[in-house]
């Protein structure tokens, strides 16, 4: 069975380590905050200028001056700090954020990522995504393996304008967890009940498949 959005987030959350400063992008990455393992504490960075993002506010505590990078009203946890966008991206660009999780339209086996525009159709702007992929040592991309027509988004070479070049090492889709190295995707885990064959079929990129591909453990 392909993973749900929540299950993708659950799998990503297993990558969190106690004491990590983490930036979660919009969409599935945001859901990761709901599945932080017991005993693990992380501080969430929001690139508009907040370290220590908390949960959504109540109707009573909503504050228009306190939003996240997705422009959602949020709260700040105990020990949080507010700062300017320049300071925020100094943190990101300077490699101080331990882990970044973000979505993508396409990734390829060179580690390139495309996530910010579809020429002639959609221009969202890159926002902070280019800075995040350039600044983080440790990036996880969450995305769907193929589009609704079954066309793979795990590619030999990205077709859309890039967000970053040679920066992605780890991708989690509804079907698989893959690592990019030496110019190929390496299949590390498959979604429970999903066959290696299906993953292979939906992957346009070169895919290195070890003898044994364990199923993800989602607890």
């Amino acid at each position, binding site marked *: 069975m392909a993973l749900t959005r929540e299950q993708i987030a659950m799998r990503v959350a297993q990558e969190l380590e106690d004491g990590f400063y983490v930036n979660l992008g919009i969409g599935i990455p945001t859901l990761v905050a709901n599945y932080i393992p017991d005993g693990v504490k992380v501080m969430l960075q929001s690139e508009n200028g907040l370290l220590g993002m908390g949960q959504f506010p109540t109707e009573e505590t909503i504050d*228009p001056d306190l939003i996240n990078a997705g422009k959602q009203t949020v709260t700040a946890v105990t020990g949080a700090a*507010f700062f*300017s966008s*320049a300071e925020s991206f100094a943190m990101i660009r300077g490699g101080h954020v331990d882990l970044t999780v973000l979505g993508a339209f396409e990734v390829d086996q060179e580690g390139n990522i495309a996530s910010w525009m579809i020429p002639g159709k959609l221009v969202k702007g890159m926002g902070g995504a280019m800075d995040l992929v350039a600044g983080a040592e440790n990036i996880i991309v969450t995305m769907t393996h193929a589009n609704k027509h079954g066309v793979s988004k795990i590619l030999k070479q990205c077709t859309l304008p890039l967000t*970053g070049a040679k920066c992605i090492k780890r991708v989690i889709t509804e079907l698989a967890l893959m690592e990019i190295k030496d110019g190929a995707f390496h299949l590390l885990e498959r979604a429970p009940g999903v066959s290696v064959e299906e993953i292979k079929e939906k992957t346009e990129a070169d895919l290195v498949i070890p003898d044994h591909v364990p199923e993800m453990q989602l607890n």
Partner: protein
Amino acid sequence: MSGFDKVVHSYEEALEGFTDNMTVMVGGFGLCGIPEGLIEQVYKMGSKGLTAISNNAGVDGFGLGKWLEKRQISTMIGSYVGENELFEKLLLSGEMEVILTPQGTLAEKIRAGGAGIPAFFTATGFGTQVAEGKETRNIDGRDYVLEPSLTADFALIKAWKADTMGNLIFNKTAMNFNPMMATAGKITVAEVEEIVEPGELDPNFIHTPGIYVQRVIKGENFEKRIEQRTVRS
């Protein structure tokens, strides 16, 4: 302190000298921390041919979205179009020049402009459209793009509190681009929620020292519209 009293009492006075074809920075991230009254005043004035530097262009019908309506902006420098349909339309049609700039690079270009740094190298955008036509360089094994700084004729910013000398503090994430823009405007106008006497703001915790601020105006009615009202379930 006569020479340091920066307070003006009308939006007209706040924008004295603001003309067509100027470059103007506007603080805020989305609709958070934007100088609502100053934006409205420029809208009223109908200034044209502006180069606007702002992370976003508001939403349809609010914030810089209003300048878009009147086609006041000829060049927009920002990082995010998002769900602003008119912005996207003007961009795709080519009616408005748009220089999309990564958010962190935008913030740093503005800081550099205010700090007398004409250009700096950054890894952000290397290998992407953003680097096209720009100098690149490999430094210690990594590839970087050379980014020139940004300055503006006017910086229109929003702060929480000011003293009459122009010292500013911001509130939470309404800070965002405002402090850097304060440093990069030839004339920086701060629209604030409250003006206090010098000495009331703790000198140890001033976000923007008054040296960067030429005019201060108390905002009349901050709407503080929320883009994504999300509450706990």
